[in-house]
Every structure is written in structure tokens, then in C-alpha cells.
């Protein structure tokens, strides 16, 4: 999935150990990092686990979905990921589950049973991916409504069924689950999933403490390096090599914290991390709705915000999002650091205000104030799991009906993720009314330069941005 996220080009964490260590299904494995480029190739070619299918090699079909179990704050949590875009090295220290790892020897698990009984498999090629996404749902606590179980399969494409039978299966699965202190024990005890899952937490803890002792063998060196890989392994598949790995979920690089009225994030923060953050959800109340429009669950589990920035796609969803919020980024090179506004980061098409050896070491932004309004809009050919034709974000600080501060950004209408400087400046100090919106749109038109491409003609993109600006203000009105 080319969500235009996750191309880190500056930092390298050299892995000196000769072998990686992780748990693959029930087995401890320790392949050399050069055993395969991606986890998909490792499981299929090296381990001969052929249940994981190759559909597109760009994270867009979900046929290769696997589960990644890791300890987060002492809890074992499973997330679905597309193994085609996952560097093998990123499996280090984790529990990797392929479909062979959720099979009972002689019966079907809860997901498989529901899929079979509801006719949710036809040609069967996408089926293992759906089974894995839904198994991941079972291993974590179910959501309150059945929306969550459908969201679990938002990254899986099926060309045969038309999805309705899969939805019926998903809802049948959802109904059999319960909120539990230990969802893994719940599904294992009820023989919904194999029993070995109950030992994984201990095994990972042991693995983790082993790796802690080796921790000083990791070091950051200069050179190119990888975040979640969700764009890099699409664009440069087969050319990535094996020794330029970055553990994108490395704990010291993965944090979201509040310091007074500022939010600070590490460069390894993924979109899913944002979705789960109390801080983000408190200050950006519709964050779930906004981020649902960005790629799919397995990609959000891998894709990082910083990668989205560095990728520099003119249509990068989170670039647009944080341009409106006037985020700052800190660039680090050896021991030197500098901080600059994200708005000054983009110089031209895929050109950054960044030295080759610099990497993003931190992201910060002022948390939205009480009297503020934030909205994100995105339109694409397919509403979900697609790249925008045009996207836009608006941040306003209001005093009654007067705009005290405005930040508006738009993607797909220029060579870079565009902060609409003139439009933002125009809005400040003005009273909100219909005329103002029309005038703002007129200003906007003077600072965009869309081109016609596969995502739409320039006329469409111009019209669409006009409409999205209206949508911002309609949403403001609704508030």
C-alpha cells in the first residue's frame, strides 16, 4: 500500500548480532538477517509455510497478512501486518503468527469455522489473510460494537464473495467473544485458538530480557534506513538489501507524551499508536474518523508519521494533517539537532530541507486549544485504503465568531504537501460567514497548481478542494 508513508532516509540501526531471534508460530527461530528481504519471503521460501499468499507485494490486498505479537507495557498485543512490506529484521523479538500458527491439528478455529459455515471463502486465495486479520481481532479484546470486527478486515481484498458472507462470518465471530482481562487466555481456554498462545507472553519476556543484555550491540550509524517500510518496500522491492534495518517500534523512539500544552512524539510512532493514544483522542476528538480514511489497519500498524513526512508525497495524509496543526520536527545528525516548522520542510517535489545524514528524531505540536476547531477531509476513488485525489486539514482558533488563528493545508494540488499560507493569513481576524468562505476559496485558488494525473484532472482537483473547504466550514457549523 503506497500510503506515502514511512520512508526514513537518514538513520540506520546497525544490527551486529549474527542472527535475529523471534518466535514463528510455536517455534523459536533465529535466521540471519540476510535470510530474506521481507517476512513474506522468509515464511514462504525459507520456512515453506505456503499458507501466506502473495497477491500484490504492495500491501494493498492483504493476502499475506500475518500477526505480530509484542509486549507493550507488559501486555502481549497482536497486530495484523502485511508481511510483503515487513522487513524480516523487524520481526526481531516478536511473535510472528502465520495461518499455520492458528491451525488446530484436526479441527477449525473459531474464525475458520465461521468462515466455512458462512460460505465466506470461494477461490480461497485471499482467505488466509482474512483468517489472520480476524484471528488478530480474537486475540485482542473485542470492540463494543461489531464495527470493530469489520474494521479488522479493512485491509483485505476479496474478488469473489462481494464481502457479505465474510461480514456474516465476522459478526458471528464477534458474538462469540467477550471482554476479558486476558483475551488470549479466553480464546485459548475456549478452544477458539490453539493453546500455545498462552505461553507466548512468558516466552517473549524471556526473549526480551535476553535481548536487553544484547541491547548495547545495537547502534545508530549514518546511512539510509527504514521505518515501517510501507512505501519503501513497494518502491524499492528487491533492492533493499538486508543490513539497513530500523526497528521501527524501538521503545526509545516510540513515545507520545504531553508537556504542558505541547505534544511530543518519537519518530517511530505509527498511525495505530496515534489512534490508541489518550492524548491524541482527547485533543483531536474525531481522530478515529479522520484516520479511518488513511490506508488500512495492517498498514496503519506499520506506517509511521515521520515516514509520511519524509516521504514528501504531495498527497501524504499526515503531512497535510500536521501542516495545519503547525507541527515542528527535530532533525538529528550525530549529536547535532535542529528544529524547524514542518511548514519549512518541503522545498519542491520530493525535495526536503534535510541533509542526507539527518533523520527526524522528534515531532511536536501545540495541542489544540479549548476554543479551537480542527477538521480533516479526504476524497479518493475508493473511500478507504486509497490515496487521496485531494485532502485538506483546517485548524482554527476562535473567539466567538472571529478567527484568531488559522492553519489550512491541502494535498494533491501542488508539488509538495501544501500549507496554504495566503489562505491561512487571509482567514485570520475575519468573522465567519458565507462570503468569507467564498473569498477564502478565491485566495486558495491563487496558491495552488494542481496537475492532471491518474487521481483526477486539475479541474476536478480544484473543484474538489473548493468543496472540501466548504466541508470544513460546514463541519464547523455543525459543532
Amino acid at each position: 500500500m503506497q500510503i506515502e508513508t514511512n520512508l526514513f532516509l537518514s538513520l540506520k540501526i546497525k544490527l551486529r548480532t549474527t542472527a535475529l531471534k523471534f518466535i514463528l508460530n510455536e517455534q523459536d527461530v533465529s535466521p540471519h538477517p540476510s535470510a530474506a528481504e521481507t517476512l513474506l519471503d522468509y515464511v514462504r521460501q525459507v520456512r515453506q509455510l505456503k499458507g501466506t499468499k502473495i497477491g500484490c507485494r504492495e500491501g494493498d490486498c492483504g493476502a499475506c497478512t500475518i500477526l505480530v505479537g509484542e509486549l507493550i507495557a507488559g501486555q502481549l498485543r497482536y497486530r495484523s501486518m502485511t508481511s510483503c512490506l515487513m522487513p524480516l529484521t523487524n520481526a526481531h523479538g516478536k511473535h510472528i503468527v502465520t495461518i499455520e500458527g492458528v491451525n488446530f491439528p484436526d479441527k477449525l478455529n473459531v474464525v475458520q469455522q465461521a468462515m466455512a459455515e458462512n460460505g465466506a471463502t470461494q477461490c480461497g486465495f485471499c482467505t488466509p489473510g482474512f483468517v489472520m486479520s480476524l484471528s488478530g481481532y480474537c486475540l485482542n479484546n473485542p470492540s463494543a460494537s461489531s464495527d470493530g470486527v469489520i474494521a479488522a478486515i479493512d485491509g483485505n481484498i476479496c474478488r469473489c464473495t462481494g464481502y457479505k458472507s465474510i461480514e456474516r462470518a465476522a459478526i458471528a465471530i464477534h458474538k462469540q467473544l467477550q471482554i476479558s482481562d486476558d483475551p488470549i487466555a479466553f480464546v485459548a481456554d475456549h478452544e477458539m485458538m490453539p493453546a500455545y498462545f498462552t505461553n507466548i507472553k512468558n516466552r517473549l519476556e524471556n526473549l526480551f530480557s535476553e535481548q536487553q543484555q544484547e541491547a548495547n550491540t545495537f547502534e545508530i550509524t549514518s546511512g539510509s534506513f527504514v521505518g515501517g517500510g510501507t512505501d519503501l518496500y513497494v518502491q524499492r522491492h528487491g533492492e533493499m538489501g538486508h543490513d539497513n534495518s530500523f526497528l521501527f517500534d524501538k521503545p526509545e523512539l516510540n513515545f507520545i507524551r504531553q508537556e504542558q500544552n505541547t505534544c511530543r512524539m518519537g519518530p517511530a510512532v505509527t498511525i495505530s499508536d496515534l489512534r490508541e493514544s489518550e492524548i491524541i483522542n482527547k485533543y483531536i476528538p474525531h481522530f478515529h474518523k479522520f484516520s479511518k480514511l488513511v490506508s488500512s489497519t495492517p498498514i496503519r500498524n506499520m506506517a509511521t508519521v515521520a515516514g509520511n513526512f519524509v516521504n514528501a508525497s504531495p498527497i501524504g495524509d499526515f503531512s497535510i494533517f500536521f501542516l495545519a496543526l503547525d507541527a515542528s520536527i527535530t532533525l538529528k545528525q550525530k549529536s547535532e539537532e535542529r528544529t524547524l516548522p514542518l511548514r519549512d520542510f518541503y522545498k519542491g517535489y520530493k525535495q526536503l530541507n534535510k541533509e542526507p545524514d539527518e533523520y527526524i528524531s522528534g515531532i511536536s505540536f501545540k495541542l489544540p486549544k479549548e476554543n479551537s476547531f480542527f477538521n480533516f477531509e479526504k476524497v479518493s476513488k475508493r473511500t478507504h485504503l486509497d490515496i487521496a485525489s485531494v485532502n485538506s486539514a483546517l485548524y482554527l482558533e476562535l473567539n466567538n465568531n472571529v478567527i484568531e488563528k488559522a492553519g489550512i493545508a491541502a494535498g494533491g494540488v501542488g508539488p509538495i504537501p501544501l500549507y496554504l499560507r495566503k489562505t491561512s493569513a487571509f482567514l485570520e481576524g475575519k468573522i465567519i460567514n458565507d462570503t468569507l468562505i467564498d473569498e477564502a476559496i478565491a485566495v486558495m485558488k491563487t496558491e495552488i497548481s494542481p496537475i492532471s494525473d491518474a487521481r483526477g484532472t486539475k479541474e476536478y482537483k480544484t473543484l474538489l478542494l473548493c468543496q472540501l473547504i466548504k466541508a470544513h466550514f460546514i463541519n464547523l457549523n455543525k459543532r
Partner: protein
Amino acid sequence: MKNIDSYTHVRGESVYLDDIPLQAGTLFAALFDSPIAHGKIKSLNISEASMMPEVVKIFTTRDIPGENQIGGIIKDEELLADTQVHFCGMPVALVIANTDAAAKAAVKKIKMEVESLEIITDPRVAKEKGELIIPPRTFQLGDTVSAWKNCDYIFEGRTETNGQEHLYIETQGAYVLPQENGALKVFSSTQGPTAVQRTIAGVLGIAMNKVEVDTTRLGGGFGGKEDQATAWAVLCALAAHDLKRPVKYSLHRMEDMRMTGKRHPYSSDFKIGLNKDLKIIAYEATFYQNAGAAADLSPAVMERTLFHCTNTYFIPNVKATAYSCRTHLPPNTAFRGFGGPQGMFVIEAAIAKAAEHLKISATEIQQKNLLKSGDEFPYGQLAESEANECWNKAEADFQISKMQQDVADFNTSNTLFKKGIAVMPICFGISFTKTFMNQARSLVNVYTDGSVNISTAAVEMGQGVNTKMLQVAAKIFSISPGNIKVNSTNTYRIANTSPTAASAAADLNGKATALACEAILQRMKQVAAAELKTSVDDIKIKDGFVYSNESKTELSWEKLAMLTHVNKISLSELAHYTPPGIYFDATIEKGHPFSYHVYGTSVITVTVDCLRGTYEIDAVKVVHDFGQSMNKMVDIGQCEGGIVQGIGWMTMEELVYDKEGKLRSNALSTYKVPDVYAAPKEIMVEALETQKENAAIFQSKAVGEPPLMYGIGAYFAIRNAVLAFNPTAHLPFDAPMTPEKVLMGLHAQIE
């Protein structure tokens, strides 16, 4: 009954082409394909690529021992380009290496100089230049010329329907193992094993009896592997035959998308005439089919467009002409519906245009003109119609008029959102229109332990045909389904097969299987009668036991199988079936080409976000003519899947070729098929159960293709919603209805 593959499918244990364990010494193939859509090859330099590590050999046309030809209907398609290239993605040179990565790396080192020639991508331009695959064909009924004067209203217009990428999740591929004495064993992800066998024989200059093609299952086909699975298998066979080593090629998604043909784009003109009572008096249509660079299946697809040009309506005066236009796109090919949907879109557009001008609902015209039994199709066959039955049941079950009123009420009270509704009735003919292809054979073996094996020509690709074959045997033998296994499709077991296509595989192969089972059963009954000293008429087999005069005996099915064998009676049967009564005379374009027709009516409602130009499909409610469904779960699955695929074609699936003939929508990131959220919120499928005699297996009508055409209604429902917002919207009949077209329709004139 569940799909018999579901247990291994959900466990990831089903074996697809790419999962077959490789023999030691297997080599890997990769293609150098043309980056230019049309031109003369000035030079082809493979020397640097040949020197790359692990490269074994690079094949060009010079290495082909037989004919460099893979065309099926017309021999007009080279396997490897010789002196000219005709489309971007046309295979030119085949690299064979010890690893997949090495083969792909070497492809990048091949250099070709091409002198560019004019590139045609528009079928109308091709027609003007006389670039036709076959001469045009015209179907005629009555006399349109004299009918126009009897019409009170006449409307003319033009339509476009774009192509559609099959997007089977399993890409194309093949794996070929050399055997002794120059024979080959070919694993191919194909809907047409015999086409693969025949083409390999021709390209290698060997006999067909040396080529064993074996297909266990496909990870989706949809027509895309009917003809176009052949090239990859032939290329692997070429290398395996020459190098005496196993050769595998499993295409990368982007190779697959750029090198294979799609559903045919069509550009069409229509003229429709109605009287004051809204009866359609006359209809003329001209179809410009974008065939791509070679015939492939285009002539047959074009023919089916003509067969379905009046959809499910009776029109007394019809003239429809079709041109198969040669352009410089990859050769377009079969895709679920096979030209039928393209023909139906045009008549529906004509009706929509008439309704919009007359300020009435299209349903008024649609309903008044539905086929009745005895009405004549433009090709001479008389309808045995269920069109009115389906429509009336839809009205009764779903209350179409009330749904229309609800939509109108919603639109009165909402400004930012508008709803649209459309009804899409369908009629689809079942049979291969190439009449001789309507034949099948089935080999049934009963073993001495009572277990049963079935081999047919049908290829399992998710449509559940193997499940249905198994059901046929289980029902006739009256034994447990667990006792029966359906084998892979193999040209050594079943010869001279028709492809699994035209929705006909279950009918043809099912009937052949039934004949084989009945023959074996009759012989076994005779053995039982002798053993039980009674007449064969008194013998029945039920639930695995022999019944004599309605009373259960000790003689089990298993014992009877052994007893039959001991009596030197055959437990095997190869049966042949061909449906009766179908014929077609192409010199007059009249005949009785279809065994029967499948009917149905769907009602589609959508909501358009008039601010953003996006839309959601609220519901698709269908009454479908199943005949007597022999497997509800499988058949409902075919309906739901077909509907969503049809909606995809009509909404978000947008093939983009640039003027240079290069595919711009060349990956899943740029070509979007429906995901779980894009599927209709509700799909309701009600069965019209009929008990009429027809040529379907157990009166269970074919179901593979027809439901796709319900999706056409999504186009018209969205159009109606846009018109509810902006009655003067400029909305050419140009599918798919992307969010871009919607937004421009909603606002372009206002802006």
C-alpha cells in the same frame, strides 16, 4: 452443502500454482516485454543480460521450434514479438535463470531499439482506419428504417464503458516439468487446459498427447485465465523442453496487470424509438469494441454483445452492428459476462435518456417492454421468459414504487445528500455461442472399497463447480459426500475440453457426470439384482445400502462395489454430454444458440454526498431466477460476488491507458476494486424458484455470470441521485461513474 474446499481454504492448506513444491533444479522465468505500444524492432540486444550471474538462457523468436503463434480463434498473436511490437507489455524475450531474482535482474539489462509507429488506442479511430479484427456483424429483427415513422419519441446518444481488470488475487503462472521421451507435465493456473495443451504442442512442434496439463484450482479467474493463461505456460514449456529442466513463472502483480488484457472497453451509439404508450418500437445500436492488438476471444465477445443488445426487452424492430476494432492495447479478453454487460449498458442508457426527456421514471419504460414467453430475440430464438415473474416478485417483495417514493421524499428534505434508485432487470443466455463447444466428458471411477473419483473438464476457481460435481454423484449414487473425491482437471484424464467459461461448466460437466454415474449405477444394480435374486427394477440404492422391493438389505454400497468388480463388471464410465437443440447460422445471424436464459430483477439504491461527490451503495435487492438451486450457499455467493464485481466496474474501477498505450492504473494502488466498506450495505437475494424443464443440471440454472449485470444499476442509481441535485447536470453516459464524474456533474456548471 458447504464448498468442499472450504476446510483447506480456511486453514491455508489449499494448493495453488505458486505453492506446488519445487523439484530440485527448477529454473525461473521472467519476461522482457515491450515498453512501446507499436513499432518496428530495429535491434534486440541480449548479450549483457546473458552474461548476468545465474542466467541460464534467454529465449527469443529464433528459439521457437514450432510456430510462433498463440492465437486461439484467429492465428494473429505471436508468442514472442518477432519484427514488430503491437502493445505495451507484449512479450519479447524470455530470461531463464537459477533464481527468480536473477531472472528479473537480467530482464533489466535487455535493450531493444524500436522505430515507433502510429499508436491507436481509440476503437472509433481504428474503425475509421479499417483496423478490424473480423468483418462487422449485424443482427436484425423487423425493419427499423420503416419503424421510425411509427415512433412518437426518438432519442439518440452515445455511450462509453471502460474496461475492467480481472484482479484475480492469484496472478497468472505456470510450472512445467519435462518428462521422458520429450513429454511435458504442465501445471497451469488456467480455465482452459486444452487451449494450453494445444498451444504448447503447436509452439513446440510436438503432438498433443505429449502434453499433460493439470489444474487443481485457480485463485480466481473471472475469464482472465480462459485464453490468457496460455502464454505463460507455453513460455515455461518452451524453456523446459529446450533445457530439460523444470521451469516456473509466477507473475508479479505489475507484470500481470500490464501484460494481460481486460474486459473490453466499448464506445457505442444508440437510437431508440417509443410510442405514446412507452412501447419501444425500434432500436438501433452500433458497437465499437476495443479489441486490443490481437483477436484473442474478441470475436466471440463481440457476438455476445449483439446477442444481449436488447437485454430483457422485446423490441420488434432492431438493428445492431458491431465492429471489433484493433488497437494497440493488450489483447482484451473474456471477463464475466463476456460482452453481454457492454451490450446491456447501451440499451439501459437509451431507456434512461428517453425517461429523462419524458420526465418519467425509467422503470415505466422497462416494465412495459419486458420479454414475454414466445417473444422473438433479434437472433431468432423465442423466449421462455421469466422477466415479468422476476419483476413482479421484486415489486411484491421489495415494493419498488414505495422505495421510489422514499427516495423522492428523502431528496425533498435533504440538500447535501441525495439518494438515487434504479431497477436493473437482466436476461442472459446460457451456452457457448460457438455451438460445438457445448460438450463435456466426465470420468467416474468407483473403487472396490466404494469410494468414488470424478474427473471432468471443469476447473474450480471458487465458483463451487467441484462441489456441484460431487453433489451430482452423491445424489445419483445416494452415498455420503465423504466417499467422493473430485480430481484436478487434467488433459490426460479428460481430453479435448471446452474451457470453464460461459457459466456453463456445471451444466455441461454435471450432465456428463450424471450420465456416467447413472451408467455405473445401472450396472451395479444389475449385479445387486442377480445377487439378491430379484429384478433390477426392484433394486434401489439409498443412503449407502441396497434396497430390494423397498426394504433395506445387508448389501452395502461398499460390498456391492467389490461384488461388481468380482463379477468382472466395470466400475468406471466415461460419459459424453452435449445439450440438445442448439444451433446458430451465422450467415443469416439466426438460430437457437442458447439452451435457456437466466432472468432477474435488481433494485439498487445509493446515497451521494453532494458536497464531496462521493457515494455509498445502500442496498441491492434482487429476485434471481435460479431454477431449482442445487446449492443455495454457493449460488447466493455467486450472486453477491457478481453484483459487487459489477458495481466495481460501474463505479470505482477505472482503467487508465495514456495516449501512448501505457497502462497508468498498473498496480493495486492505482486500480481500486471494492473493499469491504465499498460493498453495498445490504444485499438481499430472493429466489424465483421455477420447476420448468430446461437443460440445466437438476433444473439448477447457471449462475456464474448473470448477477454481474445487476451492478449496472449502480451507474443509473448514482446518475439519478446527481440529477436530483442538479437537474441540468452534464452527464455523458460514460462508465465508470467515478467520484470525479459525480462531482463534476453535481457542480461543474454551478462553478
